[in-house]
């Protein structure tokens, strides 16, 4: 991969055995942009982002055709190091999933995987990641405590810090605030606006206000197709497609 981490997808189709989950996907995502993916449930948004870090490999009978490249590298090439891909393309899940171990060990998990063992190096990474995730002030006195003791919102920010500690270039977020209260949601939205200076962010959301608040571009998915992709302001104020208009004005979905 070169240092430009743009996502480029052409003529991509994805099948879960007989189910055609993504149809003729063509999309370009520039680096340092926040792209929101909107659309009704089951229309392929999560499937789409899981394609970018190859989490779909874990699903039985999942077949993908077409070209998907990140930074010019075909990420479905045979000789691709899938662990390195996942290190570079971090992911935050819908439900916070901290490991049942200390806050420190959670964040040190990825750096340790990639061979960083020295304590002072790890300490620096942990402080930096927690600061990036806006959690440092709340947990700096209890890094050795079990992460399961944190609140839901804190756990989700911990998961963001854990993903950032792997030093990714792209951050995928699958409805990261859907399980959180409005205050925690606000904190994570503020965080996304800060993080986009360093990372390319692709976020799935069901909340259209959230999409308008945090994203530069928006893609509207319907039944496995991308109906419209463009600047968030344009897509919401002057949608080109009738179906997009119906969805963003709340007539279905």
């Amino acid at each position, binding site marked *: 991969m070169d240092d430009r981490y743009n996502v480029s997808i052409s003529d991509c189709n994805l099948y879960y055995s007989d189910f055609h989950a993504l149809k003729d996907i063509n999309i370009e995502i520039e680096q340092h942009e926040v792209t929101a993916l909107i659309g009704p449930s089951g229309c392929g948004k999560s499937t789409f982002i899981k394609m970018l*870090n190859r*989490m779909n490999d*874990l699903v*039985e009978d999942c077949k993908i055709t077409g070209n998907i490249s990140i930074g010019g590298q075909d990420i479905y090439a045979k000789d691709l190091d899938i*662990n*390195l*891909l*996942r*290190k*570079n393309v*971090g*992911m935050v*899940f819908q*439900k*916070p*999933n*901290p*490991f*049942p*171990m200390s806050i420190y060990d959670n964040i040190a*998990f*990825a750096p340790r*995987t*990639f061979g960083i063992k020295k304590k002072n190096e790890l300490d620096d990474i942990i402080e930096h990641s927690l600061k990036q995730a806006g959690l440092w002030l709340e947990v700096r006195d209890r890094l050795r405590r*079990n992460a*399961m*003791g944190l609140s839901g919102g804190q*756990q989700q920010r911990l*998961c963001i810090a*854990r*993903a950032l500690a*792997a030093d990714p270039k792209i951050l995928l977020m699958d409805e990261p605030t859907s399980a959180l209260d409005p205050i925690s949601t606000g904190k994570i939205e503020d965080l996304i606006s800060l993080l986009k200076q360093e990372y390319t962010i692709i976020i799935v959301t069901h909340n259209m206000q959230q999409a308008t608040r945090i994203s530069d571009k928006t893609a509207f998915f319907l039944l496995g197709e991308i109906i419209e992709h463009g600047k968030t302001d344009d897509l919401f104020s002057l949608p080109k497609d009738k179906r997009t208009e119906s969805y963003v004005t709340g007539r279905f979905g």
Partner: protein
Amino acid sequence: MKSKAHNRQILRYRIAKWLAFTAFVLCILSLIAVLTFILIRGLPHINSQLLFGNYGKEPSIKPALVGTLYLVLISVLMAAPIGIGCAIFLTEYMKTSSRFVSIIHVAVETLAGIPSIVYGIFGYLVFVVALHFKYSLIGGGITLSIMILPVIVRSTEESLLAVPRSLREGSFALGTSKVRTIFSVVLPCAASGIVTSLILAIGRVVSESAVLILTIGMVVNKMPESLTSPGTSLALDVYYFGSHGYPEQAAATGVVLLILVVSINILATVLGKKFGKGELANG
């Protein structure tokens, strides 16, 4: 106001309740009868000669204590890695819905249901006769390890399946290999269940007798010199003392065995609770 039918209904209800209560009392009483009888006959005869003395005129269970310890060590050290490894393979590497896994499940289930005397005759024919081990602790220990293997496989498998998928996904999404995911995330989460299953397996080894009668020789009066010597176990001593004119010593050994098995079960419960707390609270 009350009709006859209503009265009959109340009567039926009362009879059912009293029948159930009687069954409950009989059930508890039979347990208490066994315990008190063994304790009354056995407790007065637990003394230092029986526990730690040399086997002479008066019998001693020292060889049995050592033999039981050997048997536990051999069987668990052999069965634990194989059983846990097998469970890891079945849950982490095989598709849970595959035919192969369900066949293995049936096989494991069947193995768990085989009467232990059948394992005993297997051990006798293989280790004592075919391999010329003669009667030995090692032959008995290996046979026991085969006997507890299905127990360990099934319960470890259940502990591994109870680890939420989201944790595995979280680990993979950080670029972690499958091996590191298993060892750093999945196994620590399942540790309490696995430890509990191992302790319960120890309980089964300690209380087993049928397998050992046919494999270790029931030599009650000599300390085992090595793993290849014949030996005895606590359960076998109960049988031997009982059938050779030492009923009091048999009861006393029974008490020792009871205390041991109860402690093992308490330990399993305590460890299970201790590990289990908070660990997967948000699972």
